[in-house]
């Protein structure tokens, strides 16, 4: 079921144990180019750990990850982001004492102003790049409805707004794939709908997503395909409708 020629991301037989706990036990996953792929499973199934493995925040004990045709499991987390795969966190993490705008600008890649020689020796170029990035960031903030907060501290945002900022910030990286860890958790229903609309919109513009989510409405409305994880292992994969009827999947959730 793995090994698709047009897979953007494919991970095979990832294994990671913490002491005695097999958090991820030979799990595989695949995200086709241009898709919105779902990842579901009961609490403690190892979904977040799988994200950590994919993004190199944790090293797998074994297994391989291929992104955009290149093996990436040896890369550092920041290198993976630079390659075009950005992850978000289950509990939104914003940089509290930076403004919302600064949070956005930080995510820009290949800025000459991130090298201190350039700051001193080529201030003109640094300022020019910064200005164009600021414009791009304003556009994104405008579209997610956070532009009125742009100059506020990110720490002053509500929980839902933080989730939005985290997704908007991931977009600033101009990635090929975004890994979303429970984007709808703790967000009010109106905002959930808004987030979903944005994800669909960005997906149409060519961005791929891998989404962990407990809210089945979100999964049903977004995903082309869903992977189910239980106790660290692949349980099933298919369309969302198929998964809702799959007895094994239902058992895994009910067994909780």
């Amino acid at each position, binding site marked *: 079921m793995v090994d698709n020629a047009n897979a953007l991301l494919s991970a095979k037989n990832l294994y990671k144990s913490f002491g005695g706990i097999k958090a991820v036990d030979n799990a595989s996953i695949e995200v086709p180019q241009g898709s919105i792929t779902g990842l579901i499973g009961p609490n403690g199934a190892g979904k977040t750990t799988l994200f950590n493995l994919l993004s190199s925040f944790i090293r797998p004990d074994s297994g391989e990850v291929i992104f955009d045709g290149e093996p990436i499991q040896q890369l550092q987390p*920041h290198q993976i*982001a630079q390659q075009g795969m950005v992850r978000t966190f289950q509990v939104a993490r914003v940089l509290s004492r930076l403004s919302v705008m600064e949070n956005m600008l930080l*995510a820009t890649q290949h800025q000459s102003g991130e090298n201190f020689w350039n700051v001193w020796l080529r201030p003109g170029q640094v300022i020019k790049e910064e200005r164009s990035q600021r414009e791009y960031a304003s556009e994104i903030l405008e579209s997610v409805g956070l532009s009125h907060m742009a100059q506020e501290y990110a720490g002053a945002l509500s929980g839902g707004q933080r989730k939005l900022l985290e997704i908007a910030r991931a977009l600033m990286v101009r990635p090929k794939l975004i890994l979303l860890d429970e984007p709808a958790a703790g967000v009010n229903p109106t905002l959930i709908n808004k987030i979903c609309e944005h994800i669909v919109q960005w997906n149409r513009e060519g961005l791929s997503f891998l989404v962990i989510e407990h809210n089945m409405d979100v999964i049903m409305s977004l995903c082309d395909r869903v992977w189910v994880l239980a106790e660290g292992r692949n349980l099933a994969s298919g369309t969302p409708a198929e998964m809702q009827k799959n007895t094994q999947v239902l058992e895994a959730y009910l067994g909780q």
Partner: protein
Amino acid sequence: MNRTVGDRLGNSEPAITAIAKLFPFHNLPFATCMEGYIVSLIIFTAIFALFGLGLNLQWGYTGLINFGHVAFMAVGGYVTVLLSDLDVPIPLLIWIPFCVLVGSLFAALLGLLIGLSTVRLREDYLAIVTIGVSEMVRLVALNEEWLTRGAFGVQGFPLPLQGFAPTLLTRIGMLAIFTGVIAIGYWQLWKWLRQRIKGVSRQSLINSSLAVAGYLGSLGLLLYGTVIIARQLKLAEDLSPWLLGLFLLGALVGIIALYTWLAQQTIPRLPDWFVGLSLVSCLLSLAVGLWIYQFAAHAIYTYSRTSIKTGLMFISVLVVAVIFWGLQKLVRSPWGRVLKAIREDEEVAKALGKNVFWYKLQALMLGGLVAGVAGALYAWQLTTVYPDNFQPLVTFNAWTIVVLGGAGNNVGTLLGAAIFWAYQTSTRFILADVVPLDDARLGAFRVMIIGLLLMVLMVWRPQGILGKKEELTLGR
């Protein structure tokens, strides 16, 4: 012999002698020592401003806990003076700056080594390792006598501008440069103040300024009066030290209680009290600054072959100005934004494609480099360098300065350094005249008071003098 400052400054005589009379505590002849004293005060302030700026880059901006900052200063200082003492056929004017460059690069190298060995570990390891390294550096300096001459100290090394005898024109040029730097500083202060005042009605501004001026003025007079009385009591010697100490403590606690109560009464009725405080503090710093400036200016104007310290003051102020400017550019750039992101949450920085490890190394190295330059200036100011000059207490001073001004704020660090040295100098005279303690105990007592003041600051304004209050209340 007993010249007054007025004699030296000619035209401003009455003002100066009047001010001189305000300081009845000097056992030294006021006139001859004041200028030299001010010059060395400026040098120390500049050195510790630089030293604090290095720590602020590492801790204030990047969140790296460095409890051994003095190690960078020691390495920078020792390498500079030992290297410059070598016999080389190069004019000192080129050789000394080169030695400073090498010395500060060695300090940066120390930052690199500390970083490589710890940055990958948890944060608290860095704190522990830096303490260890700073003590190690000091012990190496103490024991490797073939290199550092150990406890005998290094002396007789060349000093910058040694034997420099500028013409009148050069001196005027130096004065112009010095004045320019000070003027730029005040210009920035004015811009900041204007921002504050904007949108505040004239009447409210006048009211709050007068209230603050009255508050601070009366507080100053009360403290001054207490000091005068205590001094008379100490001189009369018919009060036991215990009673005198008790009197001082009682007076101090009474004054603090009274003025806390007064502040609680007035602040709710003065909505713009903070603007008033800003205005009054700016005026105050302008007055004090100008008063100090005239001594410095006079020293530069009368620069001669023998006034080594004046040259050092000139260099120190220029170096601080240039490095401060460079650091301000950096911390406001995308580079500085990455450092702040690491301070806030390094996992996020990683997830957004920033090489956190490399940026931490850069912060450690650059902060170390700046402290290394401070070390060179420090060595020149001391003229004899002993390992004991680099006790852990010096690191504590840097932390005091940074915390006082507000972490993550370079202007605050400059202010912190100025306040710290104003405290150091004024207490040396005033406390000695007033407090019934011998010299060694007095030294400890002064440090104790700093600790006490820091505690008060942490209660009243935990973000530091120039820190932003909002930043404290933000959730993660």
